[in-house]
């Protein structure tokens, strides 16, 4: 079998509203670019196989696993949003506020991914039921077991957004 010489190529990405030109090899994962090249440590490696959700980021508003997304397959006009891009003018996002108010975490490792998943959920379903929240977040694991508080936080976030429409 032939060996492949890795060549870094320039790619254009839009991350948290900023256009970036980066040099990456074809086998580079989005998670590694975010953490190692852009210093965005919110998304984290958990399972590495898109099961646990700690690396959740939004791609054009939809949750995806950065650990299983090749940068080479992204289009320059696609927008990547990480937890670092959520706040507006220094003010935390309603989902972040709700997580703090409900203490919806313990160790915090799953929190950035969890919050990004909740952003995806509330965008398509502004008033989810408990069952709908459980169903949508079933792929975001919290090993501390903060799920009950997380579900409360989602309801509170939905309420905050309802009272302060963008």
């Amino acid at each position, binding site marked *: *079998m*032939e*060996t*492949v*010489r*890795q060549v870094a190529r320039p790619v254009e990405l839009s991350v948290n509203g900023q256009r970036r030109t980066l040099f990456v*090899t*074809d*086998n580079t*994962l989005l998670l590694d670019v975010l953490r190692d090249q852009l210093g965005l440590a919110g998304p984290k*490696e958990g399972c*590495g*196989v*898109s*099961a646990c*959700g700690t690396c*959740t980021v939004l*791609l054009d508003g*939809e*949750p*995806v*696993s950065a*650990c*299983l*997304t*090749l940068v*080479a*397959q992204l*289009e320059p006009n696609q927008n990547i949003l990480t937890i670092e891009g959520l706040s507006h003018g220094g003010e935390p996002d309603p989902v972040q506020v709700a997580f703090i108010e409900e203490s919806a975490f313990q160790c915090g490792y799953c929190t950035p991914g969890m919050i990004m*998943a909740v952003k*995806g959920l509330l965008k398509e379903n502004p008033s989810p039921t408990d069952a709908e929240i459980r169903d*949508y977040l*079933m*792929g*975001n694991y919290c090993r501390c077991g903060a799920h009950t508080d997380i579900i409360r936080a989602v309801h509170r976030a939905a309420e905050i957004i309802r009272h302060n429409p963008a």
Partner: protein
Amino acid sequence: MAIPAFRMHHPKSVKEACRILADLGEDAVPVAGGTALLILMKAGLAAPTHLVNLYGLTELRGLQYDPKVGLRIGAVCTHRSVERHPAVQAHYPMLAETHRRIANVRVRNRATVGGNLAHGDYRLDPPAPLVALDARLKLYGPDGEREIPLAEFFRGYYEVDKGAGEILTEILVPPPAENSRGTYVKFVGNAAADWPILGVAALLRTAKNGQVDDLRIVLSCVAATPLKVSGLDKLTYGRQLSPDCIASVAEAAATQAGPIEDARGSTWYKREMIRVHVRRALEQLSGGSGG
């Protein structure tokens, strides 16, 4: 987790993708969402030196419904696009429900229908309901285009009828028959997103008086390829789906399956679960309570 080095090719058309694949032979693999392939590569189970990116090919996108022709799903449509499509929800509720239950939302946002089928894993959800619906596939390769029934596409564990340089381009589902309804029962034991122990796709067409015209049951997770239960006509045609009738169908399914054992169940256990979940699927279709 690092992925072994490879070179990514970005063809501009299906034709070009097919030519690259044919030229490079077995060192090259087509990739769409990558959710299956990249896991294999991370685990060291696959190390292709060339990947051919099909994700950006607009020819392979798009989902159309025509009441006369049926549903056409471009091979790189994501599971999410199928699950949320109004025409799929309206005319193929079983298909929408099946896609909604694949893995988790992040996987469904990237993984594609064509990639799912071409992966050939016996535990995947879409094959059973699509086989029950008589879906067909279009493939494009060095010898041109061909169309085959999906049921004939599956050959064995991770083995599908797709030649060197061939690309799966479309999934075609005939229009739903009148008075037909289907359900997909996914039986999962551990975490919600774990591989299922068993999948049951049941598709029922009834006459005006409620008698069975046609009943199809296709099982996943019990054999190397989706298993279509045979001989159901003899047990059900012209009858009501009574508890006795349902029990006879569940028995036939359990007997025919001779299920393979895997990490999620022994042969004995899977056979018992087939009996239970085929019954539940049919109770659901006949308007019963299930349970």
